[in-house]
Structures are given as structure tokens and as C-alpha cells.
């Protein structure tokens, strides 16, 4: 699987994905990402990029904040694209 040349999600896109869980407004999304939100975010990214993210314990820990998730998804999707 590859990311088919798509750019990794931006911060705004990650927030939009999180906001869709619970039909929230973007401004109601918190910086901290809970375990349910993380499952949602990973599922959504895998769906949209048609890939299975190669998660590690460390990457899951890093995705506990929006900033960390943006950076980590960038790395994970770049890795998938290389593969």
C-alpha cells in the first residue's frame, strides 16, 4: 500500500477529522487526543490514504496531542509512500 502521492494531513485537516467525531466544531477540539479519538483518527487516515499505518508504541504515544499526531502521521505516511 502507498499513500498514492498524497500529502500527509495538515493540522487543520487533523482537527477536522477529530471534530467529525461527535459532530463538534473545530474550536471544540482539544489539543490532547484521547484513546477513542486516536482510534478514530488512525481509522480515518487509513481509510483516506488506503493504507495500514505501521504503528509502534512510540508513535502511539506521540499521537497523544494534535501537534504530535500531525508530525507522526507525516512520518508514517512518508514511510508508507516510500514502501
Amino acid at each position, binding site marked *: 500500500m502507498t499513500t498514492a502521492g498524497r500529502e500527509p494531513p495538515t493540522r487543520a485537516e487533523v*482537527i477536522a477529522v477529530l*471534530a*467529525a*467525531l*461527535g*459532530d*463538534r*466544531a*473545530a*474550536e*471544540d*477540539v*482539544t*489539543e*490532547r487526543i*484521547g*484513546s*477513542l479519538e*486516536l*482510534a*478514530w483518527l*488512525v*481509522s*480515518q487516515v*487509513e*481509510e483516506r490514504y488506503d493504507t*495500514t499505518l505501521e*504503528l*509502534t*508504541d512510540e*508513535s*502511539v504515544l506521540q499521537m497523544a496531542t*494534535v501537534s504530535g499526531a500531525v508530525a507522526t502521521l507525516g512520518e508514517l505516511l512518508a514511510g508508507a509512500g516510500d514502501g
Partner: protein
Amino acid sequence: MALHSASQSHAAQEPADTFPSGEWVHEELLAGDPGEPCLLMGASSPVTRGDLARRVDEQQHLLEANGLRPGGTVALQLPPSVEYVATLLAAWRAGAQASLLDHRLVRREVDNALERLAPQVVVTARSASAAPMAGYAQAVAQATARAAGRPAATQHVLIQLSSGSTGPSKIIARTAADLIGELGRYELLDQYPKRGERVVLLASMVHVLGLVGGLLHCLHAGVRLAFPERLTAEGIRDAVAAGAEPTMVLGVPFHAELLTAGGGPLPQLSRMVVAGELIRPWLPGAFTDRYKVPLGTMYGMTELGVIATDLDGRTHPALAPAPGMSLRVADGELLVKMPASPYIGLIDDTRWADGWLRTRDAAVIDEATGLVTIMGRLDSQISVGGLKVDLTEVEQTLSALQEVDSAVVTYGGVIEAYLVLRAGSSVSDVESALADQLAPYKRPRDLQVLETMPRTATGKISRDRAVLRAAAGAAPTVGQ
């Protein structure tokens, strides 16, 4: 509220001198073809009924080597694993009373629970490993004898702690007969999985839905129980697709939302059933559009197990009482007939009295059809992915921190806290302190610092979210 001691009260609190033997475990849960797979954890080899029986033997020896005897008590704090299942069944087969503690609880919560429950043996994970976001773990249990432990004071075999709405949490207890009765209710539900079928379990096996509706039902009825390699939408669909049997997915509403965001029909999928909290109105239709099978719902409580169901999604949001359940509504609150109080220790007449359990859920019963519609909670309990959290507990824990002057906790999709800090304290100090006090799912996701607490005209601290948010002013949110 009238509180009085159990010894002065009801039949449920009979002494344990006639504590039931553990024979029911074999008869109800372990009997059957030893070659038949019963637990399927990701890509690992299936665990057969024979395998499980051997693991139960081993765990029973471990418990007995630590002094557990018939009528004794044991507390389990293990992640979802074959080890958890084997140890729980071993405790019951040893004729003991088992308390279940969520493996996500932090040290303080566990210590408080052990102090109240006084188990003679505590079983924790000596080692546990799980793939990232896995639906199960590989665990090795270790048992520790506690000199301060006490034998069972009642005949109950299962003890669970509620999220306490006022004061300490309640100790909820169930007898073997009560659990077997609930298994009988599931057996009478035509659409619930039968022998030769499969359940993919997403709900926690420590809590009543996953424990009885998932684990115990599957063992009792000869249904294979599968756990996904990863708790993501793709991981859940892979788990469904991994076997040929008709398969029901059992989880909480969040899991249905996860699956509804993508994917398509799976030939094995017969239905998904969710419980634990109300679902959003659009969800059943959206789920069925995508997977071409029903999204059913159930309503139950730790105290009683399954109470009402709509497994076909035909009467949503109304539910039919499960076989043998008698319901009524008084002053807008749902009451369920229950012969004895499910609470050990202090009995609260506002929760159980005269053979009726007060659910604290608002409900309406259609007199013509007998169907019940649950409207929502009447107290401060909320649900985070099906896990019950009492906002009062969160607020009291926050308020007790030395960094916090005062705190108000509200819920608006996530748990929110509004804080007035003591001089020299910061939000990160509060977060650090809270990490030692509350399990992650109970911690506020949004912490807002206020100069002072807004008050109502009568001088009470306001609990109005709009007022609190206004007081927080232009507090930073990541979406802006």
C-alpha cells in the same frame, strides 16, 4: 437519603457460610467439546475449550497456592487476555468471590478499591504486552496474598465497583444464580448469537456488557469469541472477515461510529449490537446503509446485566424488556424489579427499595406495546466510550489537589474542568498530579483556568457551561 448497614437489611446479604461451590463454572461455561475453539485473539492460534480448561486448572493452583479457599476473596486487575479469562474462571471454580478492577485504574484508585474490598489474594499482570491499539494483550498473572484480606461476607461471586455519584463508589455484587439467570436471558433472545456462530468483542470484559454479553455468553452457548488485532475500523473488519461463521460485533456506540465512517458489506457480518450509552439518532440508518445488516442496541446495568434490547434495530430507540424483566417508570425514572439489593455494605434506599432498583435513567414506557425508551441520565454520570465516569468523582479529585483552589467539572462531548489555581501552580502541575489520581479515561480533556469562579445571583458557583466558557474568555483552543 436513608443509609443503614447491610446486616440490618435484606436477603441478598446472607452470610457466606453456605458459599456456593464452583461446580457451576464447569457446567455452565467450560463443558463441551474440548477440541472446539472458544477464544480467538488476532492471528494467534485459537484457544480451544480444552486449552482453556487446562489454563483454568493452572490458575486455580496458583490461587490456591496463595491461600485462596472456598468462600475466599480475590481481586483481579488484568488486561483483556486469555490469562484474565482463565484466572476469573479459576477463582469462581475455587468457590471464591472475585472482584474485577479495570486494568486502566491508577495506583491510588486500586489502593482505595483494595482497602474497601479487602480481598485475600490480588492478581495482577507480572508482564503484559500488546501490539499498539490491540484489542487484547498477552499477560502473565502473578498472585499476591494479602494478610489483611477477609473471606467473603456474602454469597456473591462477582463484585464490581460503580462510579460513585455521591461519596464513595458502590460495591455491586452478583450471585452465580444471578449470572446464570442473565445467561438464560441471552439464550432466549432469538437474534443473539447461537452455537457455531461468532462474536467479535470490542467492549471491555471487566464490565457487564463485555463480561456477560460477550465472554460468559460465548462460553455458555458454544459461540466463538474473537478479539481484533487492532481496535481500528480496518482491524475490526479484518476480525469479522477472519472466520466463516455468522458474526455479531459487540461494542459501544463509538465502535459503530468508527465502522460507519468507511467499509462496506461483509458476508459474515450478521449484525452489530451496541450498549453502554445512548446512540445518536442517525447512526442505525447510516450503519445499515453501509453494511446492509442491523445495528441493534441493548440497555443494561452492572447491577442486573441486560435489561432491554432491540437487536434488529426495528423499534429504535424503543427497546423490548429482556425475558423475565419487569420495568416501570416512577416520576420519570426507570425502575427494574429486583428481588434483593445488589449493593454490599451500606444500603441506599434511594437506589433499591421494596424489590425495585432505581436506575437513575429517565425513561418512557409505551403502555400499549410495553416498549421502553431510555432518555438519558438523571445524575452526573457520563459515559466515555462505554466506560462510566461520574463527574462528581472527577470534580472532588480535582478540588482536593493542593494545586487547585476550586474546580467545576462539566461535560460537553468531552470532560471539561474549570479551575481556579492556587498561587504558583500551573495547568501542567495539575495534569501531573491528576495522572496519579484518576484513570486516563476519567481525566478532563479540556482544562480551563479562571481568575475566579463565576457565581449565580444567589452566590452559588455556576455550573452553566456557557457561563463558564465565557469566564474562561478567549482561552486557547486548538481550532482557532
